[in-house]
C-alpha cells in the first residue's frame, strides 16, 4: 500500500486541497493541525508515478512544514518542532472483539511524535505532559482521540469504520463501491435478515427495501413466499426475481438456504443493474452473499439458538350450537320443511371446531458456525437445524443444512473459492388454503355443525355430512379426516456447489472461471388412511430430480488513469443448463393402514405410473463498462446476449443493452464550499432493456399428448391427441425501464435518503391467449400484450442519537402502479369459475391494474329475501354485462419502519410493516357467510342480521336463509386489506463478558422476541396478509386470481427467546 504511485497535475491549489485530492484517490491518510499555511499557500504540482515521499517533498518545499510517514499510508504533517518528552504512556489497542490490532498509528496530537503498535497490539509512547492527546488510527477503523488521562488509555478499543459510502455492494459479475453506483440497488444486512425468525429468506426481505414487496400467500410453514421487485411484469411467466447465490443463478427455490448464513443481500432493481442478467433480469435480481471467513487471525465459534411458541393471533367467531340450531330451523322453514331442532334441547356453546384444529406450536432454530483465516486461507462453516410445527395440526417444516465456504490463495496469481451448501427439508402439509365447504381441513372445521361432537363413541370422526337430514356428505366433511395418519410430506435434498478460480493475469486484468452445480431430489409421500369400514385408502409416491450446471468465464480489466479517469471493463461468456425428471405412482385399496405409502404393491388398484422430463439451456455473452471521472461523473453501459432453448425456432436470441449516468454533485466545489453539511448527493439516471424467459420448455412446439381409451374389455389403449397450437414465433418478454434516482447523505452521513422513480414497460407478454372452446383448445401461447409498472421509492435511515443512548431508525415507502396497456385478443380476461364455487372475479382489462376485482353490485334484497343485483346496463336482466370493477388487490403503498434503541448493553428493536389501500376478496364468506345455502356453519355475524319473513327488511345484511339463495361475486365480498403490523419486537442484552471475567467468550447476548405481535386492520378475515390463490401456474386464469382469501392459513403470532455466543 505504501508503494502506491501517485499521479498529480494540479494548479493553483492549496496544500489542503492537494492532500484531500490524494486522499480521495489513493490509500493515504493525512493528519495535520489547522495551520494558515496549509489553507492559504497556493501551489502548482505535477507528479507522474511518484512515490509519496517525492510528492510530499514537492508539496512542502518552501514551506515551514515537514512531514512524517507512518504505517499503513499515514502521513503526518508537522508545523512545529516537537515538545519536550516527559511522560511515558503504555497501552494495548484491540478491535471490538478484543483482538489485538497491530500496526496502529499512535500520534501525539499536534506533533510528529508517534509510534505504531506491535504484533500484540501494545505500544509505548513518550508524550509532553498529561494534557497530551493521542490520535489512534488505522485504516478500516474509526480514528479516536484519547487523552492520556483517560482510564481507557491502557486498553483502547477501535471500532470498525462504517463509512457507508465505502461499503461494497455485489452487482452482477462483480462488486462496486456504493458511492460509485449508477443503478438502483437496495442492500439488506444480515442483522435485518435475522430480525424475524424465518424459514425462507424471501420472507425476511419484507419491509426492508423499498420497491421490494414480499407477501405470504399462506401462513402454512414452508409455504410459498411471493417476492416482487417493482411490481409484476408478466401475466403467466414467473414474476419472481432471479436469485444469485455467490454468483450462481439459482434454478430452483431459495428455501434451502439458512438465513443465518447470509452476510448480505443486494437487490438489483433498475435495468442498468439487472440488464447484465439479460433475459432473466426483468423481475429484478437478488444477489445473495453468504458469509466468508474474515476478521483477525483468530478462529471463532458461534452459537445461535432460538426457541419460540406460535399461536393463532385471531380466530373466527362462528355460530354456537344454539345459534346454529336456530338458523337450521329458519332455513328449513324457508324451504318449506319442518324444523329439526328443539331449541330447548340445545345446551351450551357446542363444539368449537377451531379448537380441534388449531394448536400452540413450537418453532426452533439453531446454528453452529466456525470461521477464521490465516494468511492464505479463510473458511466459514456452519450447521443449521430449523423446526417449525404448524399452528394447524399435521403441518410443519424442518430443515437441516450445512455450509462450507473456503477461500485459498494457491499462488500469488491464483485464488480459489469453494462454496458448498447441503440442505435437507421435510415439509408436512394439510389442505387449508382455498377450501370450500368440506373439501379441506380448515374450511371443513369452519363448516362443521357446532351441534355435533368431533368424534363418535367409537372414536371415529363423526360423519357430519350424514349427521342430519339437511347436511350433505359431499359438502361437509369432518376435518379430522386430515389428522394423522393422513400424510402429505415432501422430503427434499439440495446441493449447491460453486467453485470460482480467480486468475490475476496482470495488475489490471483478472479472469474468473466458475463452475457450479445445483442439484435437488425430492420425494412426495401421500397417504389417505382407511377411517371408516368401507374406505379403501389411497397412497402415492412421486419423486423429482433436477440439476442445473453453470459455467462462466469472465474477464475484468480495471485501471486508474492519470487525471482522475477510472475504467472497469468486464466481458464474459456463460452457459447454463437445466434438466428435471419426475416419476410417480398412485394406488388405492388397502387392507389396513399399517404400511401407509411404503408398500404400494400391497394395494388392490395400481394406477398407471407417470413420468416426464424437461430440459432447457441458456447460452450468453455479456459485457459491461464502468467509467468514472474525478469521482464525480459516472457512466455504466452493459449488454448481454442470451440464447434460450425455450423459445420458438424463429426467435432464439435476444439482446439486452443498458446505460446509466450518475453525478455526485457533492464532490463539486459549490457544494463542498457552501453546503458542507451535505456529505453525499448523487443524481442517477438509467435506461435499459431486460427480459423474462417466463416460459416452460417445449411450449413453442405443436404437441400431441398421450390419452387413453378403454375398449376390448377393460383394456386401456393409448392414443395421442393434439394438445396445443404451435407458435414458432414465441420469444422473451421484454421490459424497457427508466430509472431516475437520488442519494443524499447529510450531517456526517447520519441521515441518509434515497429516492427513485421508475417506469417499466413490458411488452411481448407471454399470454395464453384464450381461444373459443369451439377451436378444440382452451388457450394458445402468444407474445401479446403490454403491462406498465411505475412507481416511487423512498428510503430513509438515520442515526438519530449516537451518544450513550443510541437510536437508529430506517423507513421505507414504495408505491407501484400497475396498468395493463395491451391485452391478447383485445378483450377482457376474467378468471374462470369453478363448477362448485364462485365464478371468476379477477379481471384483466386495458387501462386497469392486472387482476382488478370484477363483479356485480348488490342492491338490497327483494320481497322474497333474495339478493337483488344492480342492472348496470339496464337491459332488464342480470347478465355478465352488468359486472363492474369492484376494487384493486394492489396496495396504494407499502411501508416498513425499523427502529433500534440501545443503551449500554441493552437494545430494543421494533419493526413495523404494512400496506395501505388494497382490497381483499373475502371468499371464505362464500362458504361461511352465504346465508346457510348449503347448511355449513356460518360466521357469527350472520346471526340476527339475516332476512326473515316476519321482518322482511330489504336492507338486511344477509339474505333469506335458503337453498335457493344465490350469491354472485359482488361488492359483498370486497374488503379493505390495509394493515399495519408490529412484525417484530426484540429486546436483547449483551453480557459484559470482560467484566464478568469470561475470557473465553468474545460476545454473548440473550434476547426475547415477539413476531407478528399486533396487526391493525379493518379486515374481517383472520389475516390480511393473504393471497391464497397465489401460484406460479402458467395459466392466466390461475395467475389473475390475486388477492383472494379463501380459508387462508393464518400467520402465527410467535413469542420466543434466544442466545447468541461468539468465542
Amino acid at each position, binding site marked *: 500500500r505504501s508503494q502506491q504511485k501517485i499521479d498529480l497535475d494540479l494548479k493553483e491549489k492549496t496544500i489542503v486541497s492537494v492532500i484531500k485530492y490524494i486522499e480521495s484517490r489513493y490509500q493515504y491518510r493525512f493528519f495535520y493541525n489547522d495551520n494558515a499555511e496549509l489553507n492559504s499557500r497556493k501551489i502548482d504540482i505535477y507528479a507522474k508515478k511518484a512515490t509519496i515521499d517525492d510528492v510530499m517533498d514537492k508539496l512542502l518545499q518552501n514551506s515551514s512544514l515537514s512531514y512524517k510517514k507512518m504505517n499503513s499510508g499515514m502521513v503526518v504533517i508537522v508545523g512545529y518542532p516537537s515538545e519536550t518528552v516527559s511522560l511515558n504512556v503504555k497501552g494495548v489497542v484491540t478491535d471490538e472483539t478484543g483482538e489485538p490490532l497491530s500496526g496502529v498509528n499512535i500520534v501525539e496530537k499536534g506533533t510528529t511524535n508517534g509510534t505504531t503498535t506491535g504484533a500484540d497490539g501494545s505500544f509505548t509512547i513518550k508524550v509532553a505532559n498529561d494534557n497530551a492527546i493521542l490520535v489512534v488510527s488505522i485504516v478500516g477503523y474509526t480514528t479516536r482521540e484519547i487523552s492520556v488521562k483517560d482510564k481507557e488509555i491502557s486498553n483502547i478499543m477501535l471500532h470498525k469504520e462504517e463509512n457507508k459510502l465505502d461499503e461494497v455492494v455485489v452487482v452482477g459479475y462483480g462488486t462496486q463501491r456504493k458511492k460509485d453506483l449508477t443503478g438502483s440497488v437496495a442492500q439488506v444486512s444480515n442483522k435485518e435478515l435475522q430480525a424475524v425468525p424465518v424459514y425462507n429468506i424471501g420472507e425476511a426481505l419484507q419491509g426492508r427495501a423499498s420497491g421490494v414487496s414480499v407477501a405470504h400467500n399462506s401462513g402454512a410453514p414452508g409455504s410459498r413466499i411471493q417476492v416482487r421487485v417493482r411490481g409484476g411484469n408478466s401475466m403467466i411467466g414467473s414474476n419472481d426475481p432471479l436469485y444469485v447465490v455467490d454468483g450462481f443463478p439459482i434454478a430452483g427455490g431459495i428455501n434451502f438456504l439458512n438465513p443465518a448464513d447470509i452476510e448480505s443481500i443486494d437487490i438489483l432493481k433498475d435495468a442498468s443493474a439487472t440488464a447484465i442478467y439479460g433475459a432473466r433480469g426483468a423481475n429484478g435480481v437478488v444477489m445473495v452473499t453468504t458469509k466468508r471467513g474474515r476478521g483477525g487471525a483468530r478462529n471463532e465459534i458461534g452459537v445461535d439458538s432460538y426457541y419460540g411458541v406460535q399461536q393463532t393471533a385471531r380466530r373466527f367467531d362462528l355460530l354456537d350450537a344454539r345459534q346454529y340450531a336456530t338458523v337450521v330451523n329458519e332455513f328449513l322453514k324457508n324451504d318449506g320443511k319442518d324444523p329439526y331442532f328443539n331449541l330447548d334441547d340445545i345446551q351450551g356453546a357446542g363444539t368449537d371446531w377451531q379448537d380441534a384444529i388449531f394448536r400452540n406450536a413450537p418453532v426452533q432454530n439453531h446454528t453452529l458456525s466456525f470461521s477464521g483465516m490465516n494468511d492464505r486461507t479463510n473458511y466459514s462453516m456452519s450447521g443449521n437445524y430449523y423446526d417449525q410445527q404448524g399452528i394447524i395440526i399435521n403441518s410443519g417444516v424442518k430443515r437441516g443444512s450445512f455450509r462450507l465456504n473456503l477461500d485459498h490463495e494457491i499462488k500469488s496469481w491464483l485464488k480459489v473459492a469453494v462454496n458448498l451448501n447441503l440442505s435437507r427439508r421435510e415439509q408436512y402439509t394439510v389442505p387449508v388454503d382455498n377450501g370450500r365447504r368440506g373439501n379441506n381441513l380448515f374450511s371443513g372445521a369452519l363448516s362443521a355443525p357446532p351441534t355435533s361432537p368431533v368424534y363418535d363413541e367409537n372414536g371415529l370422526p363423526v360423519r357430519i355430512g350424514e349427521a342430519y337430514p339437511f347436511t350433505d356428505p359431499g359438502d361437509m366433511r369432518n376435518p379430522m379426516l386430515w389428522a394423522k395418519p393422513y400424510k402429505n410430506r415432501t422430503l427434499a435434498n439440495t446441493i449447491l456447489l460453486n467453485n470460482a478460480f480467480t486468475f490475476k493475469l496482470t495488475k489490471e486484468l483478472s479472469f474468473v472461471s466458475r463452475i457450479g452445480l445445483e442439484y435437488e431430489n425430492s420425494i412426495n409421500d401421500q397417504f389417505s388412511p382407511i377411517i371408516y369400514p368401507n374406505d379403501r385408502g389411497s397412497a402415492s409416491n412421486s419423486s423429482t430430480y433436477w440439476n442445473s450446471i453453470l459455467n462462466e468465464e469472465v474477464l475484468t480489466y480495471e485501471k486508474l488513469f492519470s487525471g482522475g479517469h477510472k475504467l472497469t471493463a468486464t466481458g464474459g461468456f456463460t452457459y447454463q443448463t437445466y434438466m428435471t425428471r419426475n416419476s410417480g405412482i398412485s394406488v388405492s385399496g388397502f387392507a389396513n393402514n399399517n404400511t401407509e405409502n411404503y408398500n404400494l404393491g400391497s394395494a388392490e388398484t395400481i394406477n398407471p405410473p407417470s413420468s416426464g422430463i424437461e430440459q432447457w439451456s441458456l447460452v450468453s455473452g455479456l459485457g459491461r463498462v464502468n467509467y468514472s471521472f474525478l469521482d464525480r461523473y459516472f457512466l455504466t453501459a452493459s449488454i448481454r446476449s442470451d440464447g434460450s*432453448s425455450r423459445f420458438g425456432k424463429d426467435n432464439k436470441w435476444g439482446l439486452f443493452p443498458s446505460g446509466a449516468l450518475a453525478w455526485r454533485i457533492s464532490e463539486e466545489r459549490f457544494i463542498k464550499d457552501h453546503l458542507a453539511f451535505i456529505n453525499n448527493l448523487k443524481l442517477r439516471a438509467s435506461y435499459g432493456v431486460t427480459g423474462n424467459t417466463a416460459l416452460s420448455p417445449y411450449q413453442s412446439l405443436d404437441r400431441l399428448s398421450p390419452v387413453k381409451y378403454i375398449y376390448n374389455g377393460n383394456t386401456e389403449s393409448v392414443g395421442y391427441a393434439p394438445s396445443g397450437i404451435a407458435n414458432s414465433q414465441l420469444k422473451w418478454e421484454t421490459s424497457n425501464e427508466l430509472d431516475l434516482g437520488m442519494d443524499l447523505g447529510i450531517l456526517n452521513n447520519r441521515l441518509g435518503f434515497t429516492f427513485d422513480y421508475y417506469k417499466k414497460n413490458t411488452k411481448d407478454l407471454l399470454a395464453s391467449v384464450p*381461444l373459443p372452446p*369451439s377451436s378444440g383448445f382452451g388457450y394458445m401461447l402468444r407474445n401479446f400484450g403490454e403491462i406498465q409498472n411505475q412507481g416511487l421509492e423512498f428510503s430513509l435511515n438515520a442515526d438519530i442519537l449516537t451518544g450513550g443512548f443510541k437510536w437508529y431508525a430506517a423507513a421505507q415507502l414504495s408505491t407501484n402502479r400497475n396498468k395493463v396497456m395491451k391485452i391478447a385478443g383485445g378483450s377482457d380476461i376474467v378468471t374462470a*369459475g369453478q363448477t362448485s364455487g364462485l365464478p371468476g372475479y379477477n379481471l384483466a382489462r386495458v387501462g386497469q391494474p392486472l387482476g382488478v376485482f370484477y363483479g356485480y353490485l348488490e342492491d338490497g334484497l327483494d320481497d322474497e329475501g333474495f339478493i337483488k343485483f344492480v342492472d348496470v346496463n339496464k337491459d332488464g336482466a342480470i347478465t355478465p354485462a352488468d359486472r363492474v370493477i369492484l376494487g384493486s388487490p394492489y396496495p396504494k403503498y407499502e411501508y416498513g419502519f425499523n427502529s433500534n434503541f440501545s443503551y449500554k448493553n441493552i437494545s430494543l428493536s421494533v419493526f413495523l410493516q404494512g400496506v395501505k389501500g388494497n382490497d381483499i376478496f373475502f371468499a371464505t364468506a362464500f362458504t361461511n357467510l352465504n346465508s346457510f345455502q348449503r347448511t355449513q356453519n356460518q360466521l357469527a355475524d350472520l346471526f340476527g342480521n339475516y332476512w326473515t319473513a316476519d321482518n322482511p327488511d330489504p336492507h338486511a345484511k344477509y339474505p333469506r336463509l335458503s337453498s335457493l339463495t344465490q350469491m354472485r361475486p359482488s361488492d359483498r365480498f370486497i374488503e379493505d386489506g390495509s394493515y399495519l403490523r408490529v412484525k417484530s419486537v426484540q429486546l436483547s442484552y449483551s453480557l459484559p463478558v470482560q467484566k464478568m471475567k469470561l475470557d473465553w467468550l468474545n460476545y454473548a447476548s440473550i434476547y426475547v422476541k415477539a413476531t407478528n405481535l399486533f396487526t391493525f386492520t379493518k379486515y374481517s378475515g383472520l389475516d390480511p396478509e393473504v393471497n391464497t390463490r397465489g401460484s406460479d401456474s402458467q395459466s392466466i386464469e390461475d395467475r389473475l386470481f390475486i388477492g383472494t382469501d379463501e380459508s387462508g392459513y393464518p400467520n402465527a403470532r410467535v413469542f420466543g427467546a434466544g442466545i447468541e455466543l461468539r468465542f
Partner: protein
Amino acid sequence: CKKQLTEIPKSFISKANYYKNASDAQTAITGVYSSLADNYGINYWLFLVNHSDYEEGRGSQAPISVFSQILDVANIGRAGDIWSSFYQTINRANSVLENVPGIDMDETAKNRILAEAHFLRGMSYFNLVRGFGPVPLKTKESVDISQVDVPRSPEDEVYKLIIEDATAAVNGLPESVGSETGKASKWAAKMLLANVYLTREQWADAAKEADDIIKSGVYTLVSVQKPDDFYKIFAVTTSSEDVLSIHHSDSRQSTLPSYLHRPNTPPYNYSSGGVYAWLPNMKSFLATWDDQDLRKSFNLYTKYLGPGGDSVLLPSATPVLFKKFITEASGLATSSDPVYRYAEALLIFAEADCMANGGPTDLALERLNWIRRRAYGYSPLAPSVADFKPGMNQEQFRDTVLKERALEFIVEGQRWNDLKRTGTVKKAMGLVGRTVIDARLLWPIPQEEIDNNGALSQADQNPGY
C-alpha cells in the same frame, strides 16, 4: 450454440413426427375415442338426468331441476364444459380426417379409422345441436389462430353435416367389432342415424335404420327373470344388447354409481364417495309404476344394508333412491355406461314406424312388447299377460312408447331429448308441478366462446343468458 438451443422433446410427441404410419393413425383415432369417454363423463350425463321430469337434482345440481329460472352460475359453467368437451372431440376428429388420408397404410384399416372419426364428429354435433341449438360448424382441425372465428350455423346445416357424417360412418364401419367392444360398429352408426331421423321426424328413415339393426341379428335382449338379472346389462363390461358403451377400468372408473347412492349404503355402493345427487321425483309417474314391472324394484330402492347386515330404511329426507349403476364388491366402478342399447332400436322402430304409417303396425306393437315382456320377466318373443294390447291409435301408441322409453332408460339421459323432440317439455314438467321458462329449452353458450370467437357477439347468446 444452435444445437444447444434446439429443443428435442422426449416425453411427448411433436406433430412433425406424427401421422407417419398405421400405428399413428390408430393412436390418433384412439385419441378421439378418449374424448368420447370424456364427453359422456359426468357433466353431460348429470345435465341430461337432471333435466328429467322424474328426477330432482340435489346440492349444486338442484338448480338444474328448477325450470322456472335460468341456470345458476355453477351450472352455466357445467354447460360450458359440455360444449368444450364436444368441440374437443370434433377437433380431434377433424385432425384425423385431415391427416390420416395421406398416410400410406392398409386401406381397409384406414377407411375404418376415417369412418370412426366421422361417427364421433357426427355424434358430437348431434349432442351439441340438441343442447345448444345452432352451433359453429367446424370441419377443419384448428392449427392456426386465424381459423377460430366461426359463426353459428343454422340447425339445418348442422343436421346436414351430422347426416353426412353418420352416413359415411355407416358405410365405413365394420359390422362387427369382434372383441373390441367400446368401439363403434356399423350398427352404432345406424343407431346415431336412427336417432337423428327420429329427432328430425323423418319417420320412415328412422324406422328403416332401426329395422336394419334389429334384423341384423347381431343383438338380442338380455333375458330377465328377476330384478337383479338387469345387472347383466348394467353391471358388466358388455352384453348382447350393448351397441355402444363407455368402458371403464380400475384406474378409469365410472362416476355414475357415486351420483346415485348415498355413501356407505351397501350393497349398491361399497365406496364412501356417494353423493346421491339424483333423487327420484315421487310426484312423477314413478309413483304409479306397476310393482309387477321388475324394472321398478331394480331401479328404485328404499333400504340398504346396515353395519350388522340388517336392512335399514333410507333416511326420511331421501326415502327412495335410484340404483341402476352399482359398484362392484371390490369397491371399483368398472362396468360400462351405455350410449346405445339394442332396446333403443326396438323402441325407435316402434315409434317411427307408427308415426310413418299413421298408427301402430303389428310389428311396431310386437317390438314394443319385446321390451314390455322382458321388463315383466317373460321371454321377449312369446306373447304374455303383460303385453300391450292392439287397438291403440297413433297418439296413444306414441305416448305408450315414450312412457316405455322413460322407464326403460331411466337415469340413462334419454328423457330430456324425448320431451324436447316431442314438444312436451312444458306439459310433462307441468304434471309434476314445474313451470318451465322458454330460456331453459336451450343451454347457454359459454361466455369464453362469445368473448373469443370474433364471429360471435353477445347477441348470439341463447335467450335468457
